[in-house]
């Protein structure tokens, strides 16, 4: 075929863009333009329909001095730290255990542990509000080992622990899958060599498995960090509209939602959103740096 007879949209250099156009349109409209709008809104004061005024950094200054924001930030940071600890250690241990061959029918356990990931978050919230109720399942189990019934959903101090229980139940399976795939990439020869040299099971775990899983651990930590700071559905469902006792479960995104939908202050809500995005970005970069993500492998 000569060049002149190929229609414009069929040319090899053009065709890829033709196929990318649908995605690009959706991406530009719903992601890029929406984010730009949000940033612009964050510099405005909105007090209802038809009243928008430019306020420069006024919203940011107000946020800096807002005690409710700091309460939300503390709660969210507390929650994220909890998930970072619980959702790395437990899945990693379980993954290693199931992979080591010590457990028969490991595949069955992996599937069962993964099922919670597939459930709808709203359903999880409703069911767990029953499980965590004063006469609910969790308190019954605690009673069996002599621990008195806790008022999980009525006490400010227990709000975050309650949500951590739900998070652990829900995400352990997913992180386990990530770690399992990482484990599969470690050559058996390393373990055999270590065993010959007299290393015990635990020593093999800490000196071979964990270091070689570093990339996966960094990956899981980053996802957990981002997900933790975006906490919204659990407090929203557990306590109607996110009104937790003593504000113990107030997360940044619940605070954002309220500012938008209860106070109808879309400008300030956008400010919170922008600041949250910046916080997540900074923390992620710090975490990556700390774990040597940016260093070349020796």
């Amino acid at each position: 075929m000569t060049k002149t007879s190929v229609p414009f949209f069929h040319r090899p250099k053009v065709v890829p863009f033709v196929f990318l156009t649908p995605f690009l349109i959706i991406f530009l409209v719903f992601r890029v333009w929406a984010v730009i709008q949000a940033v612009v809104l964050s510099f405005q004061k909105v007090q209802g329909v038809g009243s928008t005024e430019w306020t420069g950094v006024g919203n940011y200054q107000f946020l800096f001095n807002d005690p409710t924001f700091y309460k939300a930030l503390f709660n969210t940071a507390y929650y994220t730290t909890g998930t970072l600890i619980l959702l790395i250690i437990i899945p990693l241990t379980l993954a290693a255990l199931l992979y080591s061959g010590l457990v028969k029918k490991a595949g069955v356990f992996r599937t069962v542990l993964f099922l919670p990931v597939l459930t709808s978050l709203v359903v999880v919230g409703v069911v767990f509000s029953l499980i965590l109720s004063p006469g609910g399942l969790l308190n019954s189990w605690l009673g069996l080992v002599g621990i008195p019934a806790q008022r999980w959903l009525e006490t400010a101090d227990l709000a975050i622990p309650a949500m951590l229980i739900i998070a652990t139940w829900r995400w352990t399976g997913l992180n386990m899958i990530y770690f399992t795939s990482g484990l599969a990439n470690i050559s058996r020869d390393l373990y055999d060599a270590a065993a010959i040299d007299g290393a015990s099971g635990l020593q093999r775990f800490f000196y071979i498995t964990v270091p070689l899983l570093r990339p996966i651990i960094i990956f899981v930590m980053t996802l957990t960090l981002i997900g933790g700071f975006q906490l919204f559905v659990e407090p929203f469902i557990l306590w109607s509209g996110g009104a937790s006792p003593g504000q113990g479960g107030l997360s940044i995104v619940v605070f954002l939602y309220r500012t938008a939908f209860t106070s109808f202050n879309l400008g300030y809500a956008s400010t919170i959103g922008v600041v949250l995005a910046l916080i997540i970005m900074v923390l992620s970069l710090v975490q990556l740096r700390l774990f040597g993500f940016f260093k070349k492998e020796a």
Partner: protein
Amino acid sequence: MFRTMTFPKKGVILTLLLIVMLLAMIACGGAAAPAQEAAAPSEPEAAVQEEAPAAEAEEVEEVAAEVQEIDLTFWTFVDAHADFFLKQAERFNAAHPEVVIKLEPTVIDYQDMHDKLLIALQSGTGAPDLVDIEIAKFGTFMRGDIQLHDLTPLIERSGKDLVIERMAPYQGGGQQYGVDYHLGALVMYYNKELLDQAGVDVDSIVTWDDYIEAGKKVKEETGAWMATIETTDKWSVSPLMQENGGGVYDKDGNLILDSPANAEALQLLSDMFHVHQILTVAPGGYHHSPEYYAMMNDGDKVASVWMPQWFMIRFKEFMPDLKGKMVVRPLPAFEEGGMISTMGGGTGTAITKQIDPEKLDAAMEFLEFAKLTREAQVLIWTDLGFDPYRLDVYDDTELNNPDEYFSNEPVMQTIKGMLDRLTPEYNGPRYPEAQQQIREKIAYGLFEENKPPADLLSTAQGEIEAMQ
């Protein structure tokens, strides 16, 4: 056949397919509620002729033959409200043969519905014609350019018979924007059987001091708590604040959270809980939890509870064992001869500005028919179980019937007796935020953390005043 087509033809077909798919995706991703209604068959508007102006009155017979069909969309978050409105639409159509109202209600979850309404009003499209807005959310819609129609004419027509204070929470700038379902009078529900066991005469409790004495006696004789209180909702603190002349706003629209009246009310509650120890936290933290219903239903653990009138429905539905043992009485007063009730809760039905202007008159007439007429208010009691706010209705036979559950007393007459000693509740722009403060920090802080009322109230006042 597709394979043998030359490329240009294939290209055109593929592109069209892609566009159709994209449109389908965008349409399906749009607001759920209007899409649901699109699925239901929609009548084409047969608005043949407008209502004849007075000048052409001699052609009345000709005009009456034309039937005007009006489609009205209605959003609510309570199934019972949707059913009520559908029934009223039927009755309206029967009473007004020249107009056929086709009501299309959609019931959406409480939080979701208000969020969607806000977005629809903000973006200028997608809002329903009629909508239920709960009292705690109403303030949000009173900001900026109000997107609801002024309903003041309705009140002017029916006003003299209404408990006019009930209209206050849905007013803004001197205009009426919503019409409520009920009065929401606060009452005390006593387990008379338990009180009798303790040797307490329920009618001897007139003031809060009497209540405290009775509570101590109940605790001594039967070991039961006098009442439960909420730490994660407002029903324990708000009513007393209001009864004492406080509340969130005053009638002039000032934020009065840190008023002495409120502080006094909270101090009383604090004393009852921490000092006299006649109150306990409701299991689950609030009075709508299954554990609370179970505890109250046992009949020997808690002697009373103060909640709005509509809590009667919960008693009958969730606490069946208390049938015949409960009585309804006014709240104890802060002082002899003082106020014995206030208002709590409520949902205002409003008409949005996105309604087709040609439908507005009919919609307003329908709304008045459905909620403000004498017959409508009787139905509010018989169908919805709510307390009406039209004074002349309380003489109706329906409202004089003895209630088996509540010891065969005519409960609505007890409420009638309270109507002239009932403090109103005022709304304002930051009412929704104030509710959050009360639920999350004031109620919780007062009972669980034993914080001083003045501190709790001044913090709340300060935070709300500082809001942008």
